[in-house]
């Protein structure tokens, strides 16, 4: 199928970085991660990237391909214009480590702040619960998340406005939703959603939903219902929320 050029972000030991062009052979069905591996094996053994399963199941190989946050292992070259260089760069919302690798440790810290699952007493004497499949369905959608953090990467609250201290990001709103909507869970995270997790910062642009490789309808199914719970629970929060949500943002 011929050759293509991959324009890959390389960091420099002294700091900063630059795009460098690498040619790679393109075969049928190839994905961007295959090209990165080929380049590693033949031209740049120290080219850093994370990957594990190469099947879209572990969420390790997150990067930006031609400016779009994607899993490299699920981005087929025949869906890209290979007559032009394919631009591969690291996620922009996290501090760079090296080349395509970023420091995503912030996400692990955020997760610890969210109150864990706390089930109601078991329904049956053998310590088990009963749950209808349709109730499971709702939560299972959120639990499909592979923690690739592409939604965090694309979210302008984090990416452009760097509100990492005030806002947990779409991934952890989905996580909170998976706990809040679990029929067995007895925890109440609604006050935290408002105060600590910063749900009001989300103004429903749905960018996160668009980039989710697991096709989770993050905004509609997770964030909006949580926002409604926040509205319901607080005495006079409606006006405040509208202000937060619809306040014009500086670009």
């Amino acid at each position: 199928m011929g050759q293509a050029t991959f324009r890959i972000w390389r960091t420099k030991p002294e700091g900063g970085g630059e795009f460098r062009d690498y040619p790679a052979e393109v075969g049928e069905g190839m994905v961007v991660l295959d090209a990165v591996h080929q380049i590693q094996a033949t031209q740049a053994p120290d080219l850093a990237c994370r990957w594990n399963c190469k099947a879209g199941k572990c969420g390790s190989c997150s990067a930006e391909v031609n400016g779009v946050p994607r899993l490299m292992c699920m981005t087929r070259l025949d869906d890209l214009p290979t007559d032009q260089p394919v631009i591969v760069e690291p996620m922009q919302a996290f501090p760079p480590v090296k080349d395509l690798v970023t420091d995503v440790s912030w996400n692990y810290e955020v997760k610890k702040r969210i109150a864990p699952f706390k089930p109601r007493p078991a329904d049956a004497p053998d310590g088990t619960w009963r749950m209808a499949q349709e109730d499971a369905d709702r939560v299972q959608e959120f639990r499909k998340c592979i923690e690739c953090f592409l939604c965090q990467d694309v979210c302008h609250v984090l990416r452009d406005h760097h509100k990492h201290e005030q806002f947990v990001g779409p991934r952890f709103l989905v996580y909170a939703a998976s706990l809040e909507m679990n029929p067995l869970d007895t925890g109440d995270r609604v006050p935290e959603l408002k105060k600590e997790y910063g749900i009001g910062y989300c103004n429903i642009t749905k960018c996160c939903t668009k980039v989710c490789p697991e096709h989770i309808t993050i905004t509609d199914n997770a964030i909006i219902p949580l926002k409604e719970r926040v509205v319901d629970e607080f005495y006079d929060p409606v006006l405040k929320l509208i202000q937060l949500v619809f306040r014009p943002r500086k670009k």
Partner: protein
Amino acid sequence: MPTDYQTFEHDVIVIGAGGAGLRAAIEASAAGVSVGLVCKSLLGKAHTVMAEGGIAAALANVDERDNWKVHFADTMRGGQYVNNWRMAQLHAQEAPARVRELEAWGAVFDRTADGRILQRNFGGHKYPRLAHVGDRTGLELIRTLQDHGVHRGISVYMERTVVRLLKDGDRIAGALAYDRERGRFTVFRAKALVLACGGVGKAFKITSNSWEYTGDGHTLAYDAGAELIDMEFVQFHPTGMVWPPSVRGILVTEGVRGEGGVLRNSNGDRFMFGDIPDNYKPQTAKDEEEGFRYVLGDKDANRPPELLTRDHVARCIVREVREGRGSPHGGVFLELQTFAQWFGKRKRGFDAAEHWKKKLPSMYHQFKELGGLDITKEPMEVGPTTHYVMGGVRVDSDTQMSRIPGLFACGECAAGINGANRLGGNSLSDLLVLGKRAGEFAARYAKETAAGQVHADQVDAAGRWALEPFERAGDENPFKVQQDLQDMMQDLVGIVRREDEMLRALEGLEQLKRRSARCKVPGNREYNPGWHTAMDLHSLLTVSEGITRAALVRKESRGAQFRDDFPNKDTANFGKVNTITSRGPDGRMQVRLEPVPPMPGELKDAIAAEAGGKLPEELK
């Protein structure tokens, strides 16, 4: 120059954060000791996420006839009776509690009509036994353990690779690791150490395993003086993707067959009906109709032949391809349409596309996005892929401790429970049951023992070894050496084995060892995959040699090992023995045979009860 390093100290260090490592860490932590969890990747990315079909446990939610004895008998039959019976017993007995516990920690399994955990059919399991979440059960399991574990005070050290275990005399004292980000060394000092490092699949070209599967746990233990057992038994999963080339080997879950998928050759024949082993005949469907009724849960029906054990199905596929009845890209066809048509005639308004998207969501996306194929409409092309190693560190059946005091192992890098062939679904239950036991006994050991000394000479030697690829004047590219190893193992020690080919493989391994000692990597120590690969070669070469030598010793075909030159079982000579691999006094690898421990009468009865009252030859 002495090696520069940072030291972290814990009562128990767990190496590996897949299902087994996480479960061990949680248990040790619950016992009140300080626990460090060290992993090569980010937390939650380990190979467990790839497990699709489910967790085998005799919950009896779907078929009330199921119980631990049937699960035990199924596991032993699947393993061709060279399993460690005690591990198989503990596994079958304790798996239901481990699954229920996951639910208490937040896992959301698929449900039965009355709201209990749903269970599905799988190869070699007599009753529907696999608790599952669509076809992403492994993700559910690892995420549940991860989210539960982070609130237990476990210290997690991510993206750190252990290169050597450190000993104080005979006992374990810690481990030396490097971090990927900066390439700095870390000494983890511990009273007890649990290996949970997964498998060896990256020794082969076509594999469902990720880059992490380089046999680290096996090699760390072997280098430290532990024994390996059953190394010849490498499971080739019958159904991996074969096209396009870049996805070759990626797993297609057995759940596809569990939900009614059938295998066909290029003539359109459902070839599995033509080759059913005698010991499985009584529990295999006689015709298509009966097989489909089984899929739908008819308790009077037997399972379709596609759900025979993995070793057998994989060999049948190889035979079809070799005899010219394969698919265009060297596999066979796996299709859902026959079942959908049959079912559609019986259920009004059956929407096949919706049904499969719900039952097999990640398979649907995997083929749609990577193969450009709609599995609800078109047949898949599948062929065998290296999937799992039954062999591993030899450990005590109750405590999971190796022969090195303080060194424990669990999950895929430990061995015994699966014998010659693992049943699908038994690895997730194995890593929960035996992972928990490893954590429990490691904590107990740590409480009863003072910490050993870390000796500087060991740290220095390991550190110098790790840095050699930067300093030597070699000319070899580690990626190329790794690729040549994978090609060779695939060709010479793969699914069909012969003595002459394996002897050639041993010579090839010696050459590859020499080449790996000449590997040179450019760049610095910061996140340098070339350097990491150069170090991984040591473990890949060690386990490859272990597999080859053990496979040579077992001059018979049993379970996952198929010898073209000894195509039958030889129960008299090999049906009651395990291969034991260890480093000899001369520093060379040696393999010997040891008898399988004798099984108590009560367990023999459980097996006979499931085999028409007759005891298999191996147990007589």
